[in-house]
């Protein structure tokens, strides 16, 4: 029990710390964009950040199970391509197809990790070639199209409701439910101590496969979001999401060794990274500096976190 108590406390320290950082960032942000807190602005920002937030949630799911997903960018692009290619013939069917594809790629990763004795980093590395290739076959050139009504509703709000923000809240609630199920508990157990989990009767392989598949669903949703935001598909757009999703997860306190971390912290961290990127644009620096700042922020954030929570990893 005391372990659970301190665990919860630590998790909330992460959330509280990120929340505080977010408040500071928003204060600076409102200096450059005084309309940041208006509904219109919130809609635009949530539309812009939804893909990264969902991708980060996918990466966090895999990391919680003690893995890592380097194929995230490829799978995100695949879902985006499938959706963009099929969206004209019916949005719902296209979304289902895209989600199925993404979940299947995740499950394939999971099977290889669970049964084949290959480390996650290698499996997902090879998978990134594979799914990158599949994406190019589905959509060789950027294209496809998403019904303009949907694009408008997503980016500008629908009857005053910010759909992307709503989607993020819904997904978080869904995660909350998953988290309380047997599977959710097993996920943390397998990530925290695989042998212990196995010894206490958890089907660790099944849990791992499900975790990768669930991550695939999150990543698929991110891809659909990106397709709806931009109104089309692009096979090469996924790459930066791999780095940024890992960055957000680590920043949120999700451990590389699995079993430690909270999804709401991941959402906050992804939001933070998104806002920071926008803030850089406001400063009038050439967009060329963006990559430099992203890398630097990543190193600083993780170094600070590592030193602040040293006893946890050592």
């Amino acid at each position, binding site marked *: 029990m005391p372990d659970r108590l301190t665990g919860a406390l630590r998790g909330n320290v992460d959330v509280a710390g990120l929340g505080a950082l977010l408040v500071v960032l928003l204060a600076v942000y409102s200096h450059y964009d005084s309309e940041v807190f208006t509904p219109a602005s919130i809609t635009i920002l949530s539309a812009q950040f939804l893909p990264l937030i969902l991708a980060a949630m996918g990466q966090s799911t895999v990391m919680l199970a003690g893995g890592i997903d380097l194929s995230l960018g490829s799978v995100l692009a695949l879902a985006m391509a499938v959706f963009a290619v099929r969206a004209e013939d019916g949005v719902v069917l296209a979304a289902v197809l895209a989600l199925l594809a993404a979940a299947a790629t995740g499950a394939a990763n999971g099977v290889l990790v669970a049964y084949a004795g*290959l480390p996650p980093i290698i499996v997902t*590395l*090879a998978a990134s*070639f594979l799914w990158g*290739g599949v994406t190019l*076959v589905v959509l060789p050139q950027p294209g496809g199209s998403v019904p303009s009504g949907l694009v408008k509703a997503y980016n500008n709000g629908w009857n005053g409701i910010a759909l992307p923000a709503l989607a993020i809240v819904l997904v978080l609630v869904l995660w909350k439910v998953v988290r309380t199920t047997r599977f959710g508990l097993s996920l943390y157990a397998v990530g925290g101590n695989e042998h212990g989990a196995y010894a206490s009767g958890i089907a660790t392989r099944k849990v791992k496969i499900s975790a990768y598949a669930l991550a695939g669903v999150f990543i698929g949703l991110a891809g659909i979001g990106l397709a709806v935001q931009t109104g089309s598909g692009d096979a090469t757009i996924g790459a930066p999401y791999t*780095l940024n999703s890992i960055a957000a997860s680590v920043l949120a306190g999700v451990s590389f060794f699995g079993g430690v971390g909270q999804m709401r912290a991941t959402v906050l961290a992804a939001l933070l990274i998104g806002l920071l990127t926008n803030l850089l644009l406001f400063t009038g620096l050439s967009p060329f500096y963006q990559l430099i700042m992203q*890398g630097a922020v*990543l190193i600083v954030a993780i170094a600070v976190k*590592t030193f602040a929570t040293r006893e946890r990893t050592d």
Partner: protein
Amino acid sequence: MTALPRAAAVPRVLRDNRAAWAFGVLIVTWIAAILFAKGFDSVSSVRYLVQTAAFLGIVAVGQTLVIMMSGIDLSVSGVVALSAVVCAQVASGSGGAAGIAAALLASVLVGVANAAGVTWLRVPPMVMTLATGTIVAGALLVYTDGSPKSAKVPLLASFANDRVAGVPLAFVLWIAITAVAAWLLHASRVGRYVFALGNGERASRASGVPLARTAFIAYGTCALLAGVSGLVLLGFTSTSSLTMGNPYQLLSIAAVVLGGTSILGGRGHVLGTVAGALLLTLLTALLAAWNVSEGVRQIVLGLLIIALLLAYARERRS
């Protein structure tokens, strides 16, 4: 290094020596290529293959050093481009020698930054090297304003294209680098440290293995070799581009792992990496010969890599 098995049963030898497996797969693939595809049976095709494999191979040798100590370097793509771009930029103003020196210096600096982050800031290698790679990519955009120069550096051009007694100089350079790396990794004290760290960081640090020094040598050498590869590539194409290193990020790791080195570190041989790089180049050439689209090529390459890994590069369950 794996100990010699007491009972010299053939299966045991093969199971314990995954670098030998890599060469076996390479030879089988090569024979299959000669039998089932056109144009793989001539001397000139072999020459071209070993020449182009050298670009990947040189990067992969450095990657082997880092992976062997259970690290990983995802910044090699950035460093390959950095080296070529810096050399082209400097060479067009101050001459080839200055360009080469500046390029190698810049490359090593990235390696030093990687090692510093991994050892002192305790950032996980994957995140640290992804971050430095991103920073390098951004810095190159700023440095070149988005449009890097092309440059003809005679020395580099001859390294990339000339032959000694019919053997491409790039291949000779690669083999020389591999020989030095093999000594460093398998015969020197640093190499023993690398293997020790790969087998268990905490235990080896407790028994006096200098983590920092070893990391600086490994990451520094890896970045230096990525820089060398960038220079040879510049000599080969006479142009530099911001994305010219991109294929090497994943392929260098794939070459190391296909060469039988454990991604978790501590097990393997740098010679296996040579086989891995040749194998990947051969497969790519084979797919190109069959004239399939870029997408299908990637799919087949991905599937082949997974299949080969399943065949002989599985980790033992602890």
